[in-house]
């Protein structure tokens, strides 16, 4: 598939203000349009990432944002894929561009989140595994993170200090990110002094819920050229994987895994398949990647991604972290933005925010958190109910 060009990106800083999500999305969209040096009237298609926590306007996020920017007849769609919604919205925009339906598309996601644990909406739904896992077991999101972190300790000898060091690294990166909610640099002692939420994970290692917004303006390469943009950051591949049956790993929001009683699980696991998809689509391999933004809902998950994206072999992630390879200045810096640990979850915005960060990195506009000479970047993200996503950017 052909590449598309990123013409501009923009974010509303992440925080906790409780204001209307439309405000965050509009700010991000206007910044992205300014960055692209385009007017809203020049956008042919707006692709909204849905939020399910802000009422009806959130379910129709695309048209809600279009109305806030001023209804002008622009084509619109809205996408939901839980935490992967932003990547889905980007993929819809790419399809519109590559089919020739539009020249320029605006992708936007924003959210206003409640305090505390993310939880199902009100009501009794005994046929909804997301409702059942809370009601029958008390399995919050951090419970699943804790299960996998403990498994990592069992399989590979990972320690709580390894998990804490991920947070230490990412907090150093976040110091230089004005869009991050938390800019404080944490030491190991700070993390070990924070309370356990779901053993073995501590409060400072689990991402919080935040308000925020992110937007990207994309176009065909030809259209970019017509604007005088000859060498844009390009999107070379997007993955929107579902798992392959039987998936032997317990995952949000299910009460059980598939059964492998009569079918051997695929050699390549679900998370591994996400990176594999974009590598194949872009015709590169993990050894070509210069920088990554991965979905660190918990510090331990970042270590899993190192292996799932092929930066190292299973069981080697802790060494990769400890030898500095994944810090800015290392071989393959991961989460130079500070990651979700520094941002918190603003569900429909975060997959787009990952693209914003990699755009800045590849355009050499990342300031003090710049990864030197970064030319290829990968994002990885996952939404519950089987939504894997990844975006591969190149310059």
């Amino acid at each position, binding site marked *: 598939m052909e590449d598309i060009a990123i013409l501009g990106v923009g974010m509303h800083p992440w925080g906790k203000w409780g204001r209307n999500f439309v405000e965050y999305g509009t700010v991000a969209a206007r910044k992205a349009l300014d960055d692209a040096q385009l007017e809203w009237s020049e956008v042919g298609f707006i692709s909204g990432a849905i939020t399910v926590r802000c009422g009806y306007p959130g379910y129709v996020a695309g048209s809600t944002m279009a109305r806030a920017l001023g209804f002008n007849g622009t084509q619109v769609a809205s996408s939901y894929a839980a935490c992967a919604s932003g990547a889905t919205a980007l993929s819809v925009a790419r399809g519109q561009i590559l089919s020739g339906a539009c020249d320029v598309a605006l992708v936007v996601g924003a959210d206003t989140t409640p305090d*505390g644990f993310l939880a199902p909406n009100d009501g009794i739904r005994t046929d909804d595994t997301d409702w*059942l896992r809370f009601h029958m077991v008390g399995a919050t999101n951090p419970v699943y993170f804790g299960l996998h972190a403990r498994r990592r300790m069992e399989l590979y000898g990972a320690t709580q200090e390894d998990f804490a060091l991920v947070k230490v690294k990412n907090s150093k990166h976040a110091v230089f990110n004005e869009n991050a909610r938390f800019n404080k640099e944490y030491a190991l002692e700070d993390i070990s002094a924070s309370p356990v939420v779901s053993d073995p994970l501590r409060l400072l290692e689990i991402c919080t819920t935040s308000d925020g917004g992110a937007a990207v303006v994309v176009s065909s390469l030809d259209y970019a050229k017509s604007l005088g943009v000859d060498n844009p950051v390009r999107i070379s591949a997007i993955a929107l994987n579902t798992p392959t049956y039987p998936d032997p790993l317990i995952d949000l929001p299910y009460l059980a895994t598939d059964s492998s009683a009569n*079918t051997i699980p695929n050699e390549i696991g679900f998370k591994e398949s996400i990176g594999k998809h974009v590598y194949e689509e872009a015709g590169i391999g993990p050894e070509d990647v210069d920088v990554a933004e991965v979905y660190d809902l918990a510090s331990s998950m970042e270590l899993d991604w190192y292996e799932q994206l092929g930066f190292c072999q299973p069981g080697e992630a802790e060494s990769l972290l400890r030898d500095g390879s994944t810090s800015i200045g290392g071989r393959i810096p991961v989460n130079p933005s500070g990651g979700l640990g520094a941002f918190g979850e603003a569900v429909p915005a975060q997959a787009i925010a990952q693209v914003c960060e990699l755009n800045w990195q590849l355009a050499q506009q990342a300031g003090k958190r710049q990864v030197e000479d970064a030319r290829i970047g990968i994002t990885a993200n996952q939404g519950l109910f089987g939504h894997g996503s990844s975006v591969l950017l190149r310059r």
Partner: protein
Amino acid sequence: MTKDTKIEVPAVEGFFTIEEEPHLIGGRFKKSGSYCFPKSLGGSDPDFPDDEIEEVLLSRVGKIWSYTNSVYPPPPPFIAAEPYEPIVIAAVELEEEKMVILGQVVNGYSVEDLSVGMPVEVTVGTLYEDSENRYLTWMWKPLSEEQKQDKN
């Protein structure tokens, strides 16, 4: 704890049996031979498009695949006891069904008492109660002798 006159009912019907040796109620795909839990909410094997699910009782005993806890009370629709005692949760692998099932660990155990590979059996325990009923869910109970058993 003295037994009162409360009636024991499942918090949601159809997930487990209530008997001396309770079982989880799962589904078995007739053609593919694989299993699912809960019986009506499992994923399908794409290689068996016309498969049908029959209700089966799943193995009572499995081994801990991993475990954790929730130090803070989970939000609704969980109904947290007051005062809240951290719940412990295990993901348990059933040998025959080759699947991992989540569940709370029975009261009296902390994460320090558990280990990966530890054998456990399924039982039922109280999820919450009101003036008339005690609402039950399935729980995992370690089989190991040395474990402290604080069942009063």
